[in-house]
């Protein structure tokens, strides 16, 4: 009786053990949520460990480079207060000499030189030589000794570059991939023409991706329509022709193209025998046998082949959900076949078209192997230059900045797409 009385004495609803029902409910809900979280935890952790973190730490290199700061710590500290108007005084030179001696011991002088060389051409060997010679000088005055080794140390511009690159956070790499650089006075200027290539390459990457997307759409849309409208029995057989290449490795398909397209290969024989070569010659488009291998044409052709299923499949699965009654209704209301198709059927497929095209476009942006194997030197896309920067130039900062640019432009594209079409309208099936 006492329990009931107590319960009645306040207005809170309570569970059998006396705790308020609200609290109990919250506890139960939290447990449910926790259980749900545990289910997604493996994937979440997997993504954090294998994706977000490595990408984050690689991207960091686009802004962060401590080679100079780590190896010239004393110089860096003193240069922080330097006004940049005149060549620094004896104290800076003494600190610089001490830093260079320390760097010589651990063989990192070349790393300092390498970073400074990005901004002052042919500077690396001077830094290395200075490191070697200063190691033998026992005592000051350092300013005189160092300028004596190489007069370049007596220039204000040199020290401005040292000061700037001693900052661990640097805009240098990101400016570089936009074909810009900092002038001696810190203002931003254009890269000289013989080194300014990255804006052009970004444009090329987008251009090729756009062309490939367009080709896959033109080729894929009618096929998807066919697959979606013929009887299931036939559709399954035809579907195999789409899926088999889709399941084959990208490398295998690209290599196959290199064999088909090479000079005197199958492809050039076919267009020769069918008279296409003759026609192209008559039209004045080519002179003699057309060059196929290592061209833009080959790049777009091979990429279109590889990307076709990515555009086709989302369109197909959306088409499958469109009831044939709409078309019948359109016809019975007097619509001509083409008009009904254009006004009734096509608008309903747009969500699939959008999904397929976005998928193909974004995947194309990152193409690397195909342009490298079937394309020429002027068909390399941005991913190819990331490889060059990583593996041949050992310039991880540049590689990372290029990666950043690719990621950023993809995200901008996604944003624009979302504003124009709306990501909720995208359907993969």
């Amino acid at each position, binding site marked *: 009786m006492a329990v009931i009385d107590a319960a009645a004495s306040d207005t809170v609803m309570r569970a059998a053990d006396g705790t308020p029902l609200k609290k109990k409910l919250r506890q139960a809900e939290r447990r449910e949520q926790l259980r749900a979280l545990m289910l997604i935890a493996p994937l979440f952790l997997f993504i954090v460990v294998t994706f977000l973190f490595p990408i984050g*730490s690689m991207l960091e290199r686009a802004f962060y480079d401590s080679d100079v700061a780590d190896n010239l710590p004393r110089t860096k500290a003193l240069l922080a207060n330097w006004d940049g108007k005149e060549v620094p005084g004896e104290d800076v030179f003494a600190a610089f000499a001490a830093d260079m001696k320390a760097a010589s011991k651990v*063989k990192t002088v*070349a*790393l300092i030189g390498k970073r400074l060389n990005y901004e002052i051409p042919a500077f690396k060997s001077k830094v290395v030589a200075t490191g070697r010679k200063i190691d033998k000088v026992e005592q000051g005055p350092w300013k005189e000794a160092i300028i004596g080794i190489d007069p370049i140390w007596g220039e204000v511009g040199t020290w401005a570059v040292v000061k700037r690159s001693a900052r661990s956070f640097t805009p240098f790499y990101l400016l570089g991939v936009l074909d810009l650089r900092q002038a001696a006075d810190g203002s931003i200027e254009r890269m000289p023409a013989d080194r300014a290539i990255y804006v052009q390459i970004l444009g090329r990457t987008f251009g090729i991706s756009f062309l490939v997307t367009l080709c896959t759409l033109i080729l894929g849309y009618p096929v998807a329509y066919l697959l979606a409208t013929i009887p299931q029995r036939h559709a399954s057989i035809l579907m195999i022709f789409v899926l088999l290449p889709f399941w084959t490795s990208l490398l295998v398909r690209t290599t196959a193209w290199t064999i088909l397209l090479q*000079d005197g290969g199958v492809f050039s024989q076919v267009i020769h025998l069918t008279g296409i070569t003759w026609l192209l010659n008559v039209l004045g488009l080519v002179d003699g046998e057309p060059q196929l291998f290592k061209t833009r044409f080959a790049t777009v052709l091979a990429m279109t082949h590889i990307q076709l299923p990515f555009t086709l499949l989302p369109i197909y699965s959306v088409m499958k959900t469109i009831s044939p009654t709409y078309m019948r209704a359109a016809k019975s209301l007097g619509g001509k076949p083409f008009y009904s198709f254009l006004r009734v059927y096509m608008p309903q497929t747009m969500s699939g078209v959008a999904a397929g095209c976005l998928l193909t476009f974004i995947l194309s942006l990152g193409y690397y192997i195909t342009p490298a194997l079937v394309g020429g030197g002027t068909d*390399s896309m941005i991913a190819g230059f990331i490889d060059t920067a990583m593996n*041949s130039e050992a310039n991880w900062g540049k590689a990372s900045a290029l990666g950043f640019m690719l990621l950023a432009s993809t995200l901008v594209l996604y944003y624009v797409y979302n504003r124009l079409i709306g990501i909720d309208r995208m359907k993969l099936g």
Partner: protein
Amino acid sequence: MKKLSIVFAAALLAGTAFGAAARAEELTVVSWGGAYSKSQHEAFVVPYIAAGNKVTEAEYNGEVAKIQAMVDAKAVTWDVVDVDTPTALQGCAQGALETIDWAKLGLDKSKFIGSDIAECAVPNIVYGTVYGYDTTKYKDNPPTTINDFFDTAKYPGKRGLWKNPQVNMEWALIVDGVDAKDVYKVLGTKEGLDRAFKRLDTIKKDIVWWEAGAQAPKLLADGNVVMTSAWNGRLYNAVKQDNKPFKIVWDHQALDWDWWAIPKGGPKLDEAYKFISFAQDAQRMADQTKYISYGPSNTDSVPKIAADMLPNLPTAPDNLKTAWKLDAAFWADRGDEIKERFNAWLAQ
């Protein structure tokens, strides 16, 4: 953050070596692939394994960046690497290679030609960068000079070149009229560099670029090019072993060394020394010439080389007439910068 990113880079690199720990007892020897790796396999690795050691062989295309990345990430999975001279010097200056202790090797340094050039490497062979052509394409009037390589009017067709400025820039200047002994003085200036690129521009559209040494003879064999630059041993093997109708043009060949080097901080330093010492044996280095036409740097090996092989070596007097030496110090200093401009030039 920096530390963690290094740990990650290390994890990635370790991953690419298919779990280095699983074969910790094996020595990983990395070289340039194709016929050259095969010659090293026959002459050094096979007897080394027969002596009770374990070796894994791998290939690369001479990228110092790959060695540097391993050393920076403190995840060195390559124990012994075959490098060219610019890489030996640059890797040494950047702290990516171990300084060689000749006493530990147990070899007499003075017996090895070139051994005083690099502190961090042991010279193994002398090779020449030459060009070769398909004799079936030019019956009457075959190319004989380096100028002919750049003459697309007289010798039409595609040409193969190494996708690396080294040697190509020098050849361009020589063709442009610079004397071979002044090439590096000219190439060191902005005007000289422009001049070399301008000369390369004249054949740019006819160039097919190769990256791995084995690609060069393959391009020629597949008919993708009518002539190609190559390392002399690669062409020799294509002729000798695969009976290809190729001929080497020795005019203005670029001479350089290949070296054994040890990436810094590797876990198997002693074994690496042991392997290099084993491979630098006079008889074994002479044996290597049975498989590829490179000149051993060990002076004791020279009398042991088969007589019929001598004229095929880059160091044969006939082949040396117009030869010039690759200035490794120049490339170690300026290589990164010129490579960057070269890559930009390729993309334009």
